[in-house]
């Protein structure tokens, strides 16, 4: 069985590499600049791109299945597993949309986002954990898989929105749109910053232990895996050679997480600065040429289509199945747990999105912005609510 586990992680790695290569191919498929024309060589690149994407996806699926067999339960039971599965579904949803609309440009942006998601996932402990009693239920699979599937289809609408914005926002003039578009790019780089900082310190085997007093006045201990910029409440260092925290934080703040976030910010900002320094261009300007060939009307349509495909699935998985399971496991179908509330917020947001679109005619650029914001809310639920707002759902 342990052998199966290692086969499984290799498969995930293969998928990761495939996505990288496929991104390059899709890049080749959109390099022309004339709208609406596709040369034969571009078609070939596009075909290669989707083939490699599918190979990667199959490998990813094989990872999922082998891990399921090895662990005896669907691999969606901790943050690593859930996020990797989410990445897989984003790719799957992209493939689905690709076969409807045949748009390589979508792949060029969807795959890097999937890559970042998988990279992010691999920063969390990846061993297979046995299921705690609350998770022992078929509803775990049904609920989590459906919810993630819905979210991943909604994510494709954000990708279409992003392409739309990259093409339509005029970045030669200073504007709010230009600023926010670049802010979105910067946020994506921050995710890379998180991966970079975590990897760096884990390669260094960095460890620093502390005792501290938690908000219930209980003595606890904690291990940092990054140099402690912030110290826990009334901390006492147990690893003398490690750096001394710069600031001590009050007990309601988890200084370890704050430190991780800060390092991600530092690394991400550094990376962003380097890119700007070397290319002398904002990232949106760098990417704009790749979006130039997209048909705005089509991107708008894909964005809306993805929302209308994804919304019912999301509702079913994240609200209805969630309620059924909560009723079995926690004796109540709804309990205002933060994760639940944020699923509701996501749902309300997309409901507002659709109503704005058909009643106030918010199409095109406005719709694209809404799709991007929707994705930010989904990621907020995935990242921030798990890490910052601890509730019943917060994994391990």
């Amino acid at each position: 069985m342990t052998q199966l586990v290692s086969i499984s992680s290799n498969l995930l790695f293969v998928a990761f590499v495939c996505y990288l290569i496929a991104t390059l191919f899709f890049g080749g498929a959109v390099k022309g600049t004339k709208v609406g024309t596709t040369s034969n060589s571009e078609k070939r690149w596009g075909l290669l791109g989707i083939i490699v994407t599918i190979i990667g996806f199959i490998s990813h699926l094989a990872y999922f299945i082998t891990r399921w067999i090895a662990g005896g339960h669907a691999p969606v039971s901790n943050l690593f597993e859930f996020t990797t599965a989410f990445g897989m579904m984003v790719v799957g949803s992209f493939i689905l949309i690709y076969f409807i609309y045949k748009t390589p440009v979508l792949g060029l942006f969807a795959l890097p986002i999937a890559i970042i998601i998988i990279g992010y996932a691999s920063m969390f402990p990846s061993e297979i954990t046995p299921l705690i009693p609350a998770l022992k239920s078929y509803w775990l699979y049904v609920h989590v898989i459906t919810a993630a599937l819905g979210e991943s289809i909604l994510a494709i609408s954000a990708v279409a929105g992003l392409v739309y914005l990259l093409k339509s926002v005029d970045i030669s003039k200073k504007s709010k749109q230009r600023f926010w578009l670049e802010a979105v790019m910067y946020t994506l780089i921050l995710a890379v910053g998180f991966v970079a900082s975590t990897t760096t310190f884990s390669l260094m085997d960095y460890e620093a232990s502390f005792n501290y007093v938690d908000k219930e006045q209980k003595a606890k201990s904690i291990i940092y895996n990054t140099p402690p910029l912030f110290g826990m409440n009334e901390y006492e260092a147990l690893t003398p050679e490690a750096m001394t925290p710069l600031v001590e934080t009050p007990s309601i703040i988890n200084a370890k997480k704050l430190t991780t976030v800060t390092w991600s910010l530092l690394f991400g900002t550094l990376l962003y600065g380097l890119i700007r320094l070397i290319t002398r261009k904002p990232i949106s300007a760098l990417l704009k040429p790749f979006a130039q060939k997209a048909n705005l009307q089509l991107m708008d349509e894909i964005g809306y289509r993805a929302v209308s495909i994804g919304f019912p699935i999301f509702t079913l998985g994240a609200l209805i199945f969630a309620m059924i399971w909560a009723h079995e496991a926690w004796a109540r179908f709804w309990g205002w747990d933060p994760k639940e509330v944020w699923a509701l917020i996501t749902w309300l947001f997309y409901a507002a999105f659709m109503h704005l679109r058909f009643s106030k005619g918010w199409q095109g650029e406005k719709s694209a912005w809404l799709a991007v914001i929707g994705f930010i809310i989904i990621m907020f639920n995935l990242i921030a609510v798990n890490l910052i707002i601890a509730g019943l759902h917060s994994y391990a």
Partner: protein
Amino acid sequence: MNNIICACGHENPEGTVLCGNCGRPLTTEAKKQKLADMRYEGTARRSQTYNKSIIDKVWNFFSSVKVGISLIIIILVAAAIGTILPQVLFVPVRGAAEIAAYYERVYGSFGSIYNWLGLSDLYGSWWFQTLIGMLGISIIVASLDRVVPLYKSLKKQRTRRHGSFMKSQRLFAQGENILGEDTLSISEEKLKDLRYKVKREKGALLAEKGRFARWGPYVNHVGLIIFLLGVMLRTLPGFYMDETMWLREGETLAIPEVPGFYLESKEFILETYDKEQTDEVFGEAIERVGTIASNFQTDVVLYKNSEDALPGQTTDLIEVKKESIQVNKPLKFEDYAIYQMDFRLDELSTMHFNLSNKATGESLGDLSINLDKPEPFYDLGNGATVELKGYYPDFSGFENGEPQTKSPVPNNPAFLVEMITPETPKGETSFVAIKQTVEPFGDNNYKLEFQSVDTRDISGLTIRKDKTLWILALGGVIFMIGVAQGSYFNHRRIWIHENNDGQLVVAAHTNKNWFGIKKELDQVTETAQLPQYIDQQDAEDQELKKDGEKSS
């Protein structure tokens, strides 16, 4: 009421945008627009027709989608604010003063203000519930306002539409009629292949499919309303009950709020993953995290009182079933479900003592004290007795020489006893606790020595009755049917006619997924050699784009 009479002679109610008969634009605004606003087919809605009485105003307020969206956004933002700090539900204290103190202590002045503003119990607050209520009203009113006229106008659609209507459709074509008389028949055949329903009228054709998709939003709104009704019902007595009980191993208790039913706990079981025994793939995780629980379970027997028993009588209970309640596997019977929610391990249940002579060590016998119901008097035979003069289940020290107990729970039991033996017929008094013995009236000859203690586990169970579940389920199912209906199907229409100049005019409309209808229209265009259509919206975009490029 001023009806609008269209050029075609049709009378339309005030507020109509597109003539119900031929589709000509009727308002000046609609005439100016290049593309027709096809929402609700341009029909008059109540909200646009009446605006006089209070009722009209209220109706119009709630029927506005703008208002609906604002409500959704406000609820969304409020819900988000409620997650900044844990809600009172999740904090470990009860009572207003304690809660206020808790927020102050743990979250400082921010916590204080948060609690003071009522944000710590946001979802239960009257204003939050009012917002939800308004949302419900808005959904009902807005839907009624639209579905009725929409239904009417889709029902009596005319096949031939006016040229201006055709021209203002997003997909539009006009040109030579290549196949002449046969065009419509060939188109009809192709469209039928594509599963359209086709209507023909002299020189005109209307192909339509998926009209039922238009009812999707209304169906899903009905689902939402039913769900909200279910949620409201649970506040009425009798629909919803939520109780907890602590049940000790070996104990049989009446189930709170479930008349006539009793529950006995045979055993509480806590299992953890054992590194040696579980699958080796888990080894690494167990090593990192430490113990991981695998099962919380209470083995119970459910009893029912016999028919003729008096309330509270527990002598002839009839066994209903034996079951293991686990997390995720509640015990279900009649309208009720009992859940494994909590537990406490190793509560002291019986203490065993030995009465012995301090000097010789000679034993006069053992006695066991049941900590729930201690006997007042214990006869050890051979003339020795022990009398229990005081019982302090949760002993916390002496106050003015009096032993004190913190609670009735046997966390730290202590006893004041009088021991009588043949040797000491007057009796000796001793104070006995687990780790300590005090002899208040000087040295005794005998002592009551603590031997051992039996423990048992307590299960924390939740008892639920929820008669609204089927309503919620019904609402959920209807909602899902509605969204699927509205999202996965589209209402597509294609109009073809020959105009007075002998030219062929084609127009197409769908409520969503233009890509899909274009692919179908492509096929019809090819088969019937229709003039090539243009996407007027896309063309507009391209024009805008060109203008933009020129100016920049």
